[in-house]
Structures are given as C-alpha cells and as structure tokens.
C-alpha cells in the first residue's frame, strides 16, 4: 500500500452499522490479501489503513473503482457515508447480510426506539437511575455543550438509501466467496471484460442452501415441529424432515451449508433464495408442502409449533422483507424519514 502505481484501480472498504464480522471475514482470505494489495490502490479501509473521510471527500466523483460497503443504515452518519461513497464509487457493492437485507440488527424493527430506551435506561435490573436520566442530543456541562447523534426509528439496508450495483450476501460472506468476487473484479478491470448485469448477487450460488446440504432429504410430511435443543437430531437426515425448522429451502446457496453440516439448522444468513424477494413467504410456501394435514385446524396446530415465525423466517432479512418494504421510507421520502426518526 506504500508503493502505489497510479494506474491501479482504486478500492474502498467501509462499514456502517455492523458487528465487524465482515471485516474479520475479509481478513480470513489470509495471504491473498497481499494479492488484493497488489491489484488495487486501497484508498479507504478504516480497519487496516489510516485514510480519513476527508480524503474520500477530496476524491473526484466516480474516482473509486470498487467500494465494498458492509453494515446497515440506522443513523444519519451511516446515511452520509453511504451517499458519499455512492458518489465517489463507480461500483458500489452491498457487502454482507446487514447491507443487503438488514441482518440481525434489523430485528430491532420489531420493536421501537422508545421501548429500547425505556428498557436500557430505566427498567433493566442493573440500572440505577432514580431521576430517569436519558441520553440527550445536547447536554450542557460547565465547560460547554456535549452532543449526541439522533438514531432512526428503523434499520434500513444500503439499497434503501442509495442505488447499489451488486449484492454479496452472507453473515459473514465466506472467505472463498469474497476471494471469488475480488478475483472476478480484478479480471474484469484488467482485461476489460463486461460487468455482470447491475443488481446481480455475487459471491453466492443460484440455488438454495438445500442444494448444498449433505443431509438426505425425503420430503417427509411433518405432523409436529420441534426446537433444535429438544431432540438429538439424526446427523445424516434432513433437519426439516425431522421437524426442526430449517431455513435452507428459502435461503440462497453459497455458504457451503456450514451450519447444517455441524448439526444446526440454517437460519437464512445468505438471504432470500433466487427469484424470491421475501424470505418469509418463500419459507411459508416451503413449509406448506411438508405439513401432514389438509385440515385447517390441524395445520394451525402444527404451525403453532413454530414459536417465533417472524423472528425465524425474517431472522436476517427484516429490513428488506416485503412488509417492511410496503412502508419503505429511506431514500424515497426524506421528510417522512426525518419525521419518523426524530
């Protein structure tokens, strides 16, 4: 990174509201990181290189060739960086489940900011706060005014605030897939090959997690659902066949079926299956085909065994789910957004 040829394509990596797992995953490509360094001029990568926002602001629009953006959007700082990097980057990639679909942080969209604050600052058992002090956007102290940012009521995906060129799913994206994407981009940039169609999902398969699963599926009919800790599952048979809700049928392939290979059901981190925008409805239709009843009451009883359908079917895609999309606000109606989040 210190001996830069000016002709190298420019690369930026950034995180917004994220856990850092995507950054660790990038480091998991290990020594190939040196190939990335050889192929690109890294102009912004806070976890590894000391360039600042003002350095990015000083770039020409479109000067960054590729930006991998991870993390969800949940405050105005995140939104500012998304807008800035959109302007500066020719290719903007939503990298990882948070940027693509909201991931675990978007489960926050099932509750409210007020409920969150009440619990954290007033009701939690370890909190001692007799005066009900709450964090304020501005606090006067003897030496001056201290300021905090405002948080949005909702967690949004990157694509809900700016236009996104490509999507790389996964929580986190697996190292071999990250390398496959970077290798493809290097090839495109070096040899002038055409880019994939805008909006494509990269670094993942075009089938479902079930297609990668080593377990044997017999499409058995289920008369009762069980939770993962309630049975010792057969290690070779399909978990769904054994009554454990497994998101495999509704989830895009690409991870290599990691969780199901070690005895745990898929929870859907690679996002909606191809040709499906809503992971939950896809899962419901998959379940409908395995329930062993035609009687509506019996079907209700069987489905009642799924204790948290919303939090399970939309575990990783609450922000991009259709019900959220119907009230989609970010990037479309700025005033409404600010009204709802202030």
């Amino acid at each position, binding site marked *: *990174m210190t001996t830069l040829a000016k002709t190298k394509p420019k690369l930026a990596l950034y995180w917004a509201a*994220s*856990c*850092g*797992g995507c*950054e*660790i*995953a990038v480091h*998991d490509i290990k*020594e190939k990181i040196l190939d990335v360094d050889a192929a690109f001029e890294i102009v912004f990568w806070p*976890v*590894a*290189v*000391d*360039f*600042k926002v003002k*350095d990015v602001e000083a770039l020409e629009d479109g000067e960054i060739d590729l930006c991998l953006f991870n993390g969800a959007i949940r*405050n105005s*700082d*995140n939104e500012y*960086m998304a807008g800035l990097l959109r302007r500066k980057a020719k290719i903007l990639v939503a990298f990882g489940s948070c940027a693509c679909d909201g991931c*675990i*942080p978007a*489960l*926050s969209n*099932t*509750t409210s900011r007020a409920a*969150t604050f009440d*619990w*954290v*600052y007033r009701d*939690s*058992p*370890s*909190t*001692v706060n007799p005066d009900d*002090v*709450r*964090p*304020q956007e501005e*606090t006067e102290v003897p*030496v*001056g005014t*201290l300021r*905090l*940012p405002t948080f949005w009521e909702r967690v949004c995906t990157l694509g809900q605030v700016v236009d996104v060129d490509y999507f790389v799913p996964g*929580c986190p994206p697996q*190292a071999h897939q990250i390398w496959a994407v970077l290798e493809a981009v290097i090839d495109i940039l070096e040899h002038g090959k055409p880019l994939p169609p805008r909006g494509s999902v990269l670094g993942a398969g075009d089938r479902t997690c079930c297609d990668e699963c080593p377990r044997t599926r017999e499409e058995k009919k289920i008369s009762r659902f069980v*939770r*993962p*800790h309630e049975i010792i599952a057969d290690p070779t048979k399909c978990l769904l066949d054994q009554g454990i809700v497994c998101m495999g049928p509704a989830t895009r392939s690409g991870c290599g079926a*990691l969780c199901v*290979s*070690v005895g*745990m059901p898929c*929870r859907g*981190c690679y996002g909606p299956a191809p040709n499906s925008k809503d992971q939950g409805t896809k899962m419901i239709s998959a379940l409908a085909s395995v329930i062993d009843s035609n009687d509506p009451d019996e079907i209700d009883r069987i489905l009642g065994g799924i*204790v*948290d359908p919303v*939090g399970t079917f939309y575990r990783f895609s609450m922000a991009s789910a259709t019900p959220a999309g119907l009230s989609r606000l970010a990037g479309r109606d700025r005033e409404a957004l600010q009204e709802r989040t202030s």
Partner: protein
Amino acid sequence: MTRITIDPITRLEGHGKIDIFLDDHGDVADCFFIVPELRGFEAFCVGRPVEEMPRITSRICGVCSEAHHLAAAKACDDVYHLEIPSAAKKLRELLYSAFFAGDHATHFFILAGPDFVIGPDAPPAERNILGMIHKLGIDVANTVIGARAAAHEIVKILGGKSVHMVTSIPGGVTKGLDEEERQQVVAHAEQLIEFGKFTVGILNDVVLANPAYLELILSDPYTNRFHSMGTVDSDNRVNFYDGMVRVVDVDGAEIVKYHPRDYLDHVEEHVEPWTYLKFPYLKRKGWHGFEDGSESGLYRATPLARLNAADGMATPLAQAEYERFYETLTGDKTGKTPVHQTLATHWARVVELVYAAERTLELATDDEITSTDLRVLATEIPTEGVGSVEAPRGTLTHHYVTDERGILQRVNLIVGTTNNHGPISMSIKKAAQGVIKRGVEVTEGVLNRIEMAFRAYDPCFACATHSVPGEMPLVVRVRAPDGTILAEAGR
C-alpha cells in the same frame, strides 16, 4: 474556553468521540469520552426463543462472537437448569481458548504493537501493521498470520464457522471431535504455544528492553488506581470460560467473590445524559462520579484486572510469565500487589495469550475430548438464567428471563468493554491532562499518546456500542469558543 474534539469519524464513524475542553491557559479543564450509539439487542431479543440467543447475540460483535455465543449458551443451560456433559464443557472451553489466543494476537500485533514497534510519535503512515512488517520482516508477518489462522481453524472445526460459530445449544454442543480432527487441533495448539513464546520474545526485545518505553508504561499520566475484576477457578487462578467472579480492591484485598448468577447483588449501572453507554460500578461502593481510588466504585475488567484479581495462572509457561510481570512491576512475584499502570495491560495480555495457548493444548490432549457424550435434553420448565464468560475485554454477563415455553421476556447484558467505561474515560482524561499543556503544540504524536490510553483496554466498541475496535485515527480540531477552527491535526 477552547474545545478540542477528537472525533474518530474516519475509523469508528461517529461511534466514539472525545471532547477535550482547554481553559484560557491552554490546560485541560475537562474531558468527556462520548459513546454515541446504542443497538438495543436487549429489547429486540424479547419474544425470541431462548435457544436462538447464542446465534443472535454473536452478532453483537463479529470480533468476539465466540464470547457472546458461549455466554448465551451458558445462560440457556441455566434457564433450563441443565448440567451439560463434561466433554461438552471441555469442547466449548477448547474452542474458546483457541479463540482467545487469536484475539489477543490480533490486538498485540495489529492494533497496539505499532505504537511500540514503530513508536508512539512515528508518522502515522508507518505506524500500522504494514510498518511493523517492514520493520520486523515478512517472517514475522507470516508467523502472526499463521497463528491467527491456526486459532480460526480450531474455531471452525468445533464451531462450524470461523465467524459467528453455531454449535452451542442448551444442554451442550452439536459438534464433537473425531480423532483425525483432534490431531489437527493438537498441531494448531502446538503452533499457538510456540507463537506465545515468540510474542514474549517480541515484548522483551521491543518494549521491555527500551528504557523509554518502560518509563512511559510506569509514568503517572497512564496510571489510575481502580479495583480489579476477573473470573477465577477454584484455586483463584485465571479462567476464561467458567468460575467465580472475584473482585480485589486497589491494594489487592478481596472485596468479594461471587457466582455470576448473583451479579445483580454486586454490579449496578449509572446513566449519564451525554453518552449512550452506561457506567457499571460496584454496588457496595456506590457511584461517586469519575473518581479512582479505594472509595470509588469503579473497577476494571481487563487482562490487567484479571491478573490482579487472580492469584496466578493455571499453566506453567503463563505462571512463569505472570511472576516475571509482577516481579518487574511491583517487586513481588506473588502478584498480591496489584499493578495499576494502564499500559501494562499489553503485557498482561501476552501472559493471557500464553495461558490460552497452553490451555488449548491441555484440552486437546484430554482423554475425554473425543467423547460422543455431548448433549443432555431439557426436562424442566425454563425460567431464568445467567451465563458469564471472560471476554477478551472483560467479564461478559448474559441474563435471561423466559416464560414457561422458553420465550424471552427480559434480557440484560453487561458486556466486556462496558465494565471499563468509567476507567477508560478517566484514563483518557488523565493522559490528555498529561500530554496537553499550555504552550505545547498539539501534534499528531500528542494525539496518539492520548489514543494509547484507551488502546490499552482494547476497547471493543462493537460490543459496547456496536462499532468496531481498532486503531482510531484521530482528528483533533482546536476550536475557539465561537466554533472557529484554530488548528487541526490528524492523520
């Protein structure tokens, strides 16, 4: 009054900010460390099935996801009143020990190391991991990359994924070790032990052999007297996975030793209006504001605090290094006298790294480790449970209350870095007061010396505020009272 805002917006993007106020003479009048984010896991986990918590809360932090996964799994065991099979417990601790070694390696070499190897006042373009490679050679880089890869490989074998592991559930683990895998783990563990020795060598050659660094470590601006918290085994030795939480006072006397389930009897949290992160303190001491010393309620839960709170290490190489640590810094190798120099935390972290590596091998060669007795099934009605581990950055507590179906009703979390919120704030302020003086130009090197005060804590804002730990590049703006920028320094 002049305000200096240290806003690491380039690195942590609004997730951590320092406001320093200078009086008319140019001395530090006051200093605030502000944490501007809250993610709200405790609220949105309500309504979720408790057995999913190991896989949900791992997303609090992708850097120490293993800590949250295992604290959650232990809380789940407790909710269902389960005693997991001995082999399952050993497998969890095996994975966790390997993770710990890799995590400490990351901090020592990539985040903190450049301050010492390259130098606290070196140009920021060189003061990073690449500068380290340049100075120490590609062989060192390969050794560090190799050790981290070995640790990650063990996590992947046992956890299913190298980031966001999945295999712990109420009652045990879903993945064991076969003999072939065990041999791989043993080879990786042996590599980690060699790496631990190598790291001690780097520490000796680069840091301790340099009188200027020793003086810096021992200097007053980097010293605060806090109580110390850490998890200990039945012999009061450091343990990361399980044990009792022990707290010793500033002089090394035991204040309390409690079961993690009783944490509410001993820890409370204070709220300030100017930051989203709360301030834990010892209940019996009470909240007395930002004061250190014997009457303060503030405690640290860091590698340094864990060594202070324990009587020693449970493995031979680590115990030898523990004794050398205390012999050098207090003159008493028993460790009965606590060390309060914040920068000594880096050395304590190396002691822990050696222990983690030794513990990994110890467990990988345990007769029981390839057992297939990995799970018990729940038979009792779920109620309430607490799970605790030592995260690399401090004691981590998950507390769940469920209904009779095991659906979460209430969730309370006290995470590693949060324990240290008060001490981090005070360490930053004291360092700022020590390095910013009237008539002294605020250079990039000065800023870095303020950074070093919190970097020693290896603060995980992913956990505490859901940003990412790392070397924060600072932008310091010296503003006139009307907001005009008088001077700017940064990197």
